[in-house]
């Protein structure tokens, strides 16, 4: 549905590009997790999709039509649920929805019906008459979501929609995003919470310093580095452990223990048996695939970005 090809952008007077040769696709029915540290270029990318920035280099198409053409014909095909509370704080929930429904061209019975549907989807019916600035953080996020859904967008962009909300609201929002994708929307979801993206994304794009570092289906990215075993033994005999595990795969020191990426022909049980046979006592063991946070940190390094 959405295709971004070799997109580049540099802000006036900036020494480095905010986006450099970025390419990826987002398809209907899937959630694309867009990850990156602060300053990676996520907001610039979203601003392009929201029509707030003009393309300098590369192209963005929606169903093979240039984005500008699509936006001029029907801007409501794309909706953004931005990081900020993008609504009028002194207006009530209903007044906000009516305002943005009207701005998008809805009126009369159609508008009322759609507002009711969005209120129901976001479970905001009880708060329809409440001023937006009196809502809790979670309710404000739900209002942001409701406004984004008003015009039945085909592409939905969520920019860190769960910042500052309680676990219940977060769970609700994640469910809602997943449901929207299942109903046929293409969803782009950015967040710094890796477990969220891991829970709902079908594919992932990792950006840093304006470039795509990695992209692909989530399960493929997480399984690509093989099965990992983190192990520590009593008595601090790390050197012995490193030597013992070397034949089983790639092993590196990690804290007080080691991390072993198992070769395909070896299994967890054989490793533990070897350790036991060598007379070492296991004090800590963790087994499984790389998680998204590990992958993200390994790609983007640990240095602070702000």
């Amino acid at each position, binding site marked *: 549905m959405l295709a971004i090809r070799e997109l580049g952008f540099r802000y006036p007077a900036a020494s480095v590009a905010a986006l450099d040769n970025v390419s990826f696709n987002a398809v209907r029915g899937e959630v694309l997790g867009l990850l990156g540290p602060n300053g990676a270029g996520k907001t610039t990318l979203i601003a392009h999709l929201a029509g707030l920035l003009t393309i300098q280099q590369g192209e963005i198409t929606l169903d093979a039509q240039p984005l500008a053409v699509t936006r001029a014909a029907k801007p409501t095909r794309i909706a953004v649920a931005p990081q*900020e509370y993008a609504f009028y704080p002194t207006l009530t929930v209903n007044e906000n929805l009516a305002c943005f429904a*009207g701005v998008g*061209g809805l009126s009369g019975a159609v508008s009322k019906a759609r507002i009711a549907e969005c209120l129901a989807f976001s479970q905001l019916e009880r708060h329809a008459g409440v001023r937006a600035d009196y809502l809790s953080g979670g309710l404000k996020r739900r209002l942001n979501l409701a406004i984004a859904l008003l015009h039945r967008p085909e592409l939905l962009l969520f920019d860190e929609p769960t910042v500052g909300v309680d676990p219940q609201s977060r769970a609700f929002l994640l469910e809602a995003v997943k449901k929207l994708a299942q109903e046929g929307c293409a969803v782009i979801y950015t967040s710094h919470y890796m477990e969220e993206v891991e829970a709902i994304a079908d594919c992932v794009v990792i950006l840093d310093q304006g470039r795509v570092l990695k992209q692909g289906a989530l399960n493929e990215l997480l399984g690509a580095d093989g099965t990992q075993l983190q192990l520590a033994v009593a008595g601090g005999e790390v050197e012995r452990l490193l030597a013992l595990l070397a034949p089983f795969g790639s092993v590196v020191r990690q804290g007080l223990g080691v991390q072993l990426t198992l070769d395909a022909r070896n299994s967890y049980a054989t490793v533990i048996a070897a350790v036991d046979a060598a007379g070492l006592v296991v004090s800590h063991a963790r087994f499984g695939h790389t998680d998204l946070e590990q992958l993200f940190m390994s790609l983007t390094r640990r240095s602070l970005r702000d």
Partner: protein
Amino acid sequence: MARLNMFLALMKKELLALSRDIHGMAALFLMPMVFIVVMSMALKDVYSPTITKLAYAVLNQDQGEAAKRLVERWVKERGDAKALPENWRDEVRSGRLKYVLLIESGFTSVVDNPGGAEGAKARLLTEPGLDNGMFETNRMRLVAMVTRLRAEAMLAGLPGNLDAAALMGDAPVAAERMAAGAHPTAVQQNVPAWLVFGMFFVVASIAGLFVEERSCGALARLRGLGVQPWQLIVSKVVPYLLVNGVQATLMLAVGIWLMPVIGGEGLSLEGVHWDALLLMLFAISLAAVSLALAVASLVNTHAQAATLGPILNVLMAALGGIMVPLFVMPTVMRNIAAFSPMNWGLEGLLDVLLRSGDIASVVSEAGRLAVFAVLMLALSFVLFRRRV
């Protein structure tokens, strides 16, 4: 149809947001009303002085015929005198008594014998703080009365066929303000002045709401929904023209109906050309809203919006003859005032309300306001595009 819905939704939002802004509403509606009432009451006497209502007493030490006639004539013009307190000097010094007319012993003799030696006088002893205009008016009136008494005494000494009353009739002098319609009063002057001031106060409201709209991300969302900068500007102009219309109606109503109830003079729209009045109000409103949009596009924060708007307003009002009438300003300041849009608005309204001006007589002021509005709208459009 979709575009009309968009405009209606944006305009409704603007009015709803304004109606929830208590401080903004107070600045737009309450403040100019209070100014009209307070300033009209405070300046009431500038146009109908209280000279005949000053508390005074008479100390007649002469008791002669001329002294009696002087007192009679003074009382007839200035109203009854208070009883002379024993400590009248202290009463005058403290201002409780505004003045004392002291007629010294021998006054009648001096009046009846014009060629005689100077001596006794009719003295006006006033409180220290008496307004200079009032002091001079009373002094000159006393001089005129005594001169007349002297002339009457001289004529009385001439052969009896001369009719002293006919000779000394009212002097052939008349003075009046050249008002074509309503006569000038404090209300007639203050309503247009503070109405212009109030209408320009939309600067603070529009700037505040625009900063909020921008900072909360709602503006970006509107742009995302395909709203163009010119559409955003138009959607803000129209509601505030309506707000200015309501302001004008309220301020005129205060002048017409409220002021007489609380003891002031009522505003009169007698002889007013309504088409000229509406043209002036529209031109002022357009200039005010356009300036507001330019300021709104310029500021970045709530603090800037909350200070820049009112400061600009007060400056324009001070320079434009709203706070200090133009006729008391020196020439330099009057030349500066000619550059203030508030002054153009005020002069146009005074033309309509005081001088019964028609459209032709206000076309210059309305034209200047319209040109100013176009420039400000162009500036806001340029700034708007950069910021949204």
